[in-house]
């Protein structure tokens, strides 16, 4: 069974690996490239824990064939911070107790970042819509919504 070489830009760096036929991007990122920030929650496209961006759009890595990302730009939660400097959303999640078990958090942050990138001043309803594909079982939603609102309104601290 021939493996396919895949080269893509992951969080700003060119990365390459070999994908199995039919392998999804989630497995390729995690096992192939060692980016463990996207999480497996269902493999069915129903939980959002594997949310990444592909060419700037949020997608579900478990529903993307790894081989189709050749030459594309992929972003994950591991790339949110600028070096040691956290994204304001990450800081807000920390201050607002917007994570409990932390398993949905990377995907949630990718969705939240994508929202603020295209709509810096979302309403509460916009935020609800934007995170509706990211399940938090703990939950979680109220402080998450509040943390995203805080960033959009320029509030810092808890």
């Amino acid at each position: 069974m021939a493996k396919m070489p895949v080269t893509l830009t992951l969080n700003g760096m060119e990365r390459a690996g070999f994908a199995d036929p039919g392998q999804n991007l989630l497995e390729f990122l995690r096992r192939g490239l060692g980016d463990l920030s996207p999480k497996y929650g269902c493999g069915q496209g129903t939980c959002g824990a594997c949310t990444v961006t592909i060419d700037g759009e949020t997608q579900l890595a478990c529903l993307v064939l790894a081989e189709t990302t050749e030459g594309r730009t992929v972003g994950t939660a591991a790339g949110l911070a600028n070096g040691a400097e956290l994204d304001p959303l990450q800081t807000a999640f920390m201050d607002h107790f917007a994570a409990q078990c932390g398993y949905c958090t990377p995907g949630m942050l990718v969705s939240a970042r994508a929202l603020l990138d295209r709509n810096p001043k979302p309403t509460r309803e916009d935020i609800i819509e934007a995170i509706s594909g990211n399940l938090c079982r703990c939950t979680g939603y109220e402080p998450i919504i509040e943390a995203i609102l805080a960033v959009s309104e320029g509030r810092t601290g808890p």
Partner: protein
Amino acid sequence: MNARTGGFEFRKELFADERDDDLNEIGKRIRRQDIEGHVTGRSPFYDDHLFDGLLHMRCVRSPHHHARIGRIDTAEAERMPGVVRILTGKDVPQNLNTLLSLLDFGLDDEPVLSVDKAAYKGEPVAAVIAQTEAQARAAVKAVRVDWQPLPHVLDPEEALKPGAPTVCETYPGNAFVYHGKYDHQKLRYGDVEAALRQADHIVEGRYQMSPIEQAPIETCGAISAPEQNGRWVCYTGTQALFFSLGTASKVLNLPSSRMHFIGGTVGGGFGGKVDSIHEPLSILGAMLTGRPCKSQWDREEEMQVGAPRGAERWYITDGVMNDGRIVARKFTGYFDGGAYTRLTSYAVIKGVGHLPGPYTIPNVYADAYCVYTNRTPATAMRGFGITGVDFAIEAHMDKVAETVGMNPIELRILNAYRDGDMKAHRREAKNCAFIECCQVVAEKAGVTISPEARAASSKTGGGGERARLPAFTATDEHGRVEGFESGSYARKGGAPAAPGIPAELTPDRPSPPTLPTARPVETPPTPAPAPTTPDQEKPAARTPQRRSGAVRFSSISGFRRR
């Protein structure tokens, strides 16, 4: 939607004299220690440990609710690409366990991989180990099992009727056996029938709690690998590290010192990660292949094979006076345990100890059953043993309030337990705050309650008469079961097991040759003396009428049956 977000109201004025609020770190809203790992995606969940050459394990499962297993033919599957090994029940050193055997609670009733029959849809009978998950999935389909379907039963009350199919041969009557003696756990406090005869109103109800999936976003699983020096490392999402270690030690017949369990960062549990399914399986896979091996449920398995909180059915009959006082409460409860015990037997006792809810009622009766049915075994889930019966009690209280024409909050305060009251399990209540919670909500929600209800307090009005045990308690031998030996919660005839983890596991047959590393189990050290009890509840003032059969069961901390 305008939900108020963040923060809550502290009612610091309540119980202020019982508290020291002048502390440095306690009571402060301090960031979580693990939060930076969570928001950067660096927190190490069990599946975040990468191993070169990781093998993947997937199980062959029963498509039937209940079926005898004929031949399991793995020949074709073993020839499939990437398949390294296929395990069946004969590969498991001690292929029968019950989760709470570590507490000497219940009889071993559940195989790791079933050999003779499957008692629920989804029960595993073989485990394929392959180089990729896709290869394992493909090979699972190629394993041929001769299934001979058997009649099945899915409703717990049906399962208790004579002639119902036996689900779990360990308990032929389809009910867990308590104290080697009864097919249910009893609670008898006072004389409920007499009190019901004198009550102004009888209020009856039947309540059904649904089966609930824990649904952590991280599915259950474990990765095990050969470590140095004849040990195995196991990265796990368990909720109970030593529970899983003890279970693995037992079913693998392997001393705990030969295993290294690492976990503690878990993507949600809610009770479903106590069952310790994947740890022994993945270690066994690593032992038999010499390579790292992962056992993990996909979402479909998590939802239908992973144990839910089982359904519960409760019947409640209350005797109520015109003024709202509840003078008698009678329960019959059926916990749907599924095909094997897991933790349901314990939840029944927890539920019985909780009755009749946060109320002081002079006559209480309960029969609570742990019933076997041909469905996925039930296990812990947030509130196990309590959530279902609280639903029943509090829905019932609403009917009682309607019957006597009383505000439902007042009704609860009128019947509430207070410091010093005697509870139905014959211990005094203390540290109560039920009345105050009711009062705070009534005030916040603008519900008018009587001056008496507003003035009530958990700290006053209890004890005295309310601390007295009933003058007479009606007991009975209904539900007597033969063939089990009295002396524990469920014990069949035979010598009692030795204490401690490994000794309980003493295999009754040689270890299979496939486990070259297995060694005789070590005898645990003599148990240490019990530490003093910190502030335990005061026992009831009066000795109950009968104590026969009461036991103290051994636990891994060294307590011995007396």
